[in-house]
């Protein structure tokens, strides 16, 4: 009872004005937050990063081959076959094969024969990628699937 008789703390006009202002602000802010979801793609546009590299016979035991377009080195040995990514783990340049292992032209990272860090700014060794055999019998490398370094895939 006494509560109701008290003078309004906030004049009615001010209250309505503020309410209008805040609902407008919330509406605009809410829409903007909703829209900010837009630039983050939910599906990456690349058509998948699996690629066929050839038949097992193309990679005889004890050889290695650099596939420039795919940016991998395919190495084949008695234990199986392995694909080492040639993308430098520092900032993404393409490393080149050197006698001691791999070297990066951009900031001089050095990697050993199996891609382990040997020097320079690279925070980790080169990625080893999964190799599998496709339905048509050809080998498939999946650049999105990393395996532990030293893993030879049996195909």
């Amino acid at each position, binding site marked *: 009872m006494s509560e109701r008789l008290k003078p309004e703390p906030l004049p009615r006009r001010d209250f309505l004005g503020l309410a209008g202002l805040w609902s407008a602000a919330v509406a605009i802010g809410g829409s903007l937050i909703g829209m900010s979801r837009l630039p983050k793609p939910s599906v*990456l546009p690349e058509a998948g990063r699996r690629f066929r590299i050839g038949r097992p016979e193309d990679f005889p035991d004890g050889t290695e081959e650099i596939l420039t377009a795919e940016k991998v080195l395919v190495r084949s040995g008695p234990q199986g076959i392995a694909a080492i990514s040639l993308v430098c783990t520092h900032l993404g340049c*393409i490393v080149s094969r050197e006698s001691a292992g791999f070297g990066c032209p951009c*900031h001089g990272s050095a990697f050993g024969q199996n891609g382990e860090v040997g020097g320079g700014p690279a925070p980790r060794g080169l990625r080893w990628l999964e190799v599998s055999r496709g339905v048509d019998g050809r080998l498939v490398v999946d650049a999105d699937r990393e395996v532990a370094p030293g893993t030879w895939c049996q195909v």
Partner: protein
Amino acid sequence: MATSGTQGLRENLRDLPRNFRDSMIRHEPPVSDRSRSQAVFTNLFLHIHSTRTHVRTLSASATFGLGVAALSFFAILTGTGIALMVYYTPSTDLAYQSIKDLHYVVPTGRLIRNIHRWGAHLMVLAVMLHMCRVFYTASYKAPREFNWVAGMGLFILTLALSFTGYLLPWDQLAYWAVTIGANIAASPRELTDALGITEVFDPGGFQKELLLGASEVGQQALTRFYLLHVIVLPLALAVLLGVHFWRIRKDGGLGHPGQTHNAAGKGVEETEAKRPDAEPQKSYGLMAIVGGTSSATDDEPGTTVPSWPFALRAELLVFMACTLICVALGMAFDAPLKEIANPGVPENPAKAPWYFLGLQEMVSYSAFMGGLVVPAVTVLGLALIPYLDREPEEAGVYLGGARSPRVAWQSALFGFVLSVAAVAVPVNFGWLRSWFPDVSQLVVIFVNPGSLLMAAYAAWSLGVLARTGSTRKSAIALFTCFVVGFLVLTVVATFFRGPNWEFHWSQATWPAH
């Protein structure tokens, strides 16, 4: 009636040009001080000036015209940029070819492209020098703190504009510089990987994806960079420029000796023009007495001059000089265009534009520290300067205050020796990994020449604070160290880094390939 009707129409037609002009222009012909001031006062584009300008702020050494130069380059870039957009096509298949067309086929295309490229370099240079002049004249002090922060925003936007523009030609230089830049955005992974939490918390990957719209630099990235470069960033820059200029005006014009501010540090209100310490502002009273070299609102007579012609003339002069430099450089030197982007073969060495080379040098120790943490801390530190150093000091005097020049020289020397050491030690003796091959990645991230250099500069600045008890001198120490360090790293990365980022005294000793 009919005759007088046609008569009237004929008169209206005859007077149309004059009436149209009178309706468009609100002031009298600019033939006297009074009508020119009226023009400055009533014209939308001119009224960013007050009607009168303090003479001290017009002397060449007060500003070296650097802010106006930055603005001029921005205007030149906008004009030439629109011209380039006529032909440029933001598609990975066509971009390179359209630049080639611009360069070799389109009439005047090559010159316009060259001017755009030179203008971009010069704008970055002008903004950096402008920032130095504002700093060393203590012009960031109250009431101008916020305008310094707005200026930092402009600085970042300027760099972002030039970074996004760099990708557009889609040549080797562009592709690899942006690949590296995007991976710097992803470099928090260095830390999250070392801690083993990337699976659950991956801010680096998020940033990279936002920037590229994909996991590699491709069409999505080109679209995004184009959008940022031609619409988002220039608009943001233009709006922020408006704020910047508005604040100059509201903060009482450019800082100059003899200027006083009220305790709250607020700029001079228009209606307060009659306050004894107020700078002359536009006011109706002022309009009537605007002739001559002084105005009644000015406490020291003879210190202000009409903005038209004095300030406008100076600005026009700077603009013309900037245009001339751009055109001359554009005629003499072609903007580079390498081979078309090849994602399989990096440029060697792949160098960013000069103003990012200092960063690239630090990135070659650790991408995360050198590429993100050091720049972020630097930008934050710069932005906070006016709030950390609030000592009153007269604005507009270079290194005013006893012993400030000495602090600056000592800091320059300190900054030089340490930054040279930060390059020389790793070049000659290697770094942690060469000494302790099994050292933990976390140590490599945090203990590297770049972060040590930053820490040493901070320590030096705190030392100056302890020694002199002056936050201004401490700020001078820090700022000077950073400027010198930036210069040294930039020079090293520009001239002394060759293939594989190896150190070479001259390009002649680069291995042939």
